[in-house]
Structure formats: structure tokens, C-alpha cells
């Protein structure tokens, strides 16, 4: 049985069947339609620092954010994140950062907060997610604030 491990609720790590995990994540996803702003517990400034931190598998390796005028050579593989807050709710953003494979199994977007279905992970990174729960919230908070200036 495939297991989805989620480190949540502080330091408690839970292991749940993959199918249940999928349902949980989709619940979060659909909850976004009911209340698009119900995820609101991150720190945007901290999220910005995380995004620029190359040790944290930075979003900028693949994505571009036009407001980062001092950042050189941002990636162009993934979608432009400059106004991503206009296109996706916080819940949608968080889902994509957590594990975009739940929406598209073939995506090359790394799963930033999932341990499921990973192969030959380096010893240093075994049983560790790319982001911590707090980092996930911080980055989500920052990205959701990226909106077109009106």
C-alpha cells in the first residue's frame, strides 16, 4: 500500500494511505473554492527569503518573478510567478507546492512537502521534506501576494 507521510501539526509525523492522503489534499483544494483565503498563517517576508535561498531548492531555478529586479538569471522552465496570486488561491498554491503530482502525475515540479513515491533519496535527505510545514506556509503566503499592480 502506498503511504503518504505528512509532517504536520508541529513535530507529529503521520503516515496515511496514499488514497486517503489524496482525498485530504483534494479536500483542501476544494475548500479553496468555498473560502479562497482560509489559509493565512504564513509570514510573507520569510517566504520571500526562502524563495531566494538557493539551499532550499529555490523556486527561481525554474520560475521567474518580475518584481525580483535584483535577481539575475531566473529560470524559465515553469510558469511565470509574477502575478500568480491573481490566478491561484492560497489553497491551490499550497497544493501545488506540497505535491503537484496530485494534480499532474507527470509534472517535473518537485514535491516540496511530501515523502511519498520518492526513489533513491540521498541519505542526507531521507524522511525529510524540502520545506518544513512553516516554510510551506511562508512561501504560500508570499506567492499569494504576488498580484498585478492596479
Amino acid at each position, binding site marked *: 500500500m502506498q503511504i503518504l507521510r505528512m509532517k504536520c501539526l508541529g513535530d507529529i509525523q503521520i503516515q496515511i494511505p496514499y488514497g486517503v492522503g489524496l482525498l485530504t489534499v483534494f479536500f483542501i483544494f476544494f475548500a479553496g473554492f468555498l473560502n479562497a483565503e482560509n489559509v493565512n498563517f504564513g509570514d510573507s517576508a520569510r517566504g520571500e527569503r526562502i524563495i531566494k535561498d538557493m539551499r532550499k*531548492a529555490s523556486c*527561481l*531555478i*525554474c520560475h521567474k518573478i518580475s518584481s525580483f529586479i535584483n535577481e*539575475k*538569471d*531566473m*529560470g*524559465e*522552465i515553469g510558469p511565470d510567478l509574477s502575478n500568480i496570486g491573481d490566478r491561484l488561491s492560497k489553497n491551490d498554491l499550497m497544493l501545488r507546492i506540497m505535491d503537484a*503530482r496530485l494534480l499532474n502525475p507527470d509534472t*517535473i515540479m*518537485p*514535491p516540496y512537502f511530501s515523502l511519498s*513515491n*520518492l*526513489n*533513491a*533519496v*540521498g*541519505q*542526507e*535527505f531521507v524522511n*525529510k521534506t*524540502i520545506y518544513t510545514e512553516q516554510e510551506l506556509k511562508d512561501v504560500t503566503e508570499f506567492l499569494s501576494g504576488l498580484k498585478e499592480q492596479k
Partner: protein
Amino acid sequence: MKNIFIFVMFCVYPSLACSDDSVKSGYQFMELETRLLQDDDFLNPGFFLVEVGEKYWNSKLNNDGQACAECHGNVTTSMKGVSIEYPRYDTQSKNLINLQGKIISEFTKYNNVSGLYYDSEPILALTALISLQSRGMEINTVLSEELEPFWVSGKKLYETRRGQLNLSCSDCHVDLVGQRLRGDLISQGHINAFPIYRLLWGEPGSTHRMFEWCMNAVRSEPYSRGSTEYVELELYLMHRGNGMISESPGVRR
């Protein structure tokens, strides 16, 4: 019916005309400065390694041993075209062997030297010297019946996602070629210039060191240099690069 055919061809032709599946060396994805460094044998830092290789070619590693030159003679003639024939099937061991593995086995046999590190100076330097003799020659790896199972394993490794970032070699070097990953243009990931002098390392390195670097980059557990898995991957990549010209010793960012 004829109109439908014309319409379909009208839609399809531009995409056919634009598609470019040809093999391209990493050289074509490099900055001009790096290209110029590779083009000039006097400036190319890989040639320091070739010089060291000449020293090892003509000398023995211990008093009881034999120098390569004693049996093989002039490297420029005896080793022409040899490097692009590796990895090959070794009938004695009934296993796949690459050039570095062959050099190590020759040292063990004729110089009674064992336990040489895969990327040790004599091995890497001789690999560079021997590979230089095939520079300008076309890679044409023929998959024999013996080689095919190793090629299949290499292909599987190439296409399997690994590591915390969950990426395979093909995710980048097939699907995203020509796109920008931070400051780098993603190449097709060919190995026609190895051993290379890598600016990022500040020293020369082997194909297996590059594989290790990539696996570390996706936060995956690397295999050891010289391992069967890496030699199989090397075979897959050599075959994938058929039609390309050998550039060893190359320079890469």
C-alpha cells in the same frame, strides 16, 4: 478528401519543419568564452591532464611493471579511435567495461598495482590522453547482442526519477533542452567531450564524476564511480550520442 489532406498537411508541416531531433554537443549550449577556451589547445586546461597522461604512458608505475608504451608504442597511432569504442563487452569478465575500467585492469595486470582510485591522477590522465587520439572522430556505438541488456539498464536509469527533487536525467536533458535553468541553458547531456575540465570544479573530471554531481543535485543517493550502474548509463549515453564528434578533452561550465 483532398482538401482535408491539404488542411492537415498545412497544420502539421510547420511543426515538422521546426522540430529538431538532431544530436547536439554540450559545446553548442556553452557561452562563447567557454567555447574559445576549449577551441584553443594552448589555453584548454584539459591539456594539462593530457601532458600528465603522456608521462604515465611512457613510464611504469613500479620497477617490475611495464609502461603502456612498451606494448602499445606510439599513443597517437595505437590509440586512434579506441576511446569511442568504449564502453564495450569484455569477453574475459563477461561484463561491460569502460575505458577507465580497462586502464585500471591493465595497470593491475602489468604493473601489479591494485586498488587505484577510479578518478586517480594516472587513470584520469591516461583516459584524457587516449581520448584525445579520437578527437574529431564520429561516435558510432553499435549495440551488439551482448551489449543490449546493459543498454536497457542504462536507459532505465536515465529515465527513472530519483531523489528528493524527483527528477530523472531525461526530464531535463530530453524534455527541457534549450531552456534556462537559472543561468544555464539545459544541454542534451552528451558525454562526447569527457574527460572534461569543468570550470565549476576548477579541475578535470570523468563522466562518472558528472553523473555523481547530477545525482547529488537532485538530492539522490549516487552510485560509486566505476560502478556497473554508471558504466551502463555511460553506454546508453554513448549510443544516444551516435553521430556526434568526439571533443575530448572538453571544457564545460
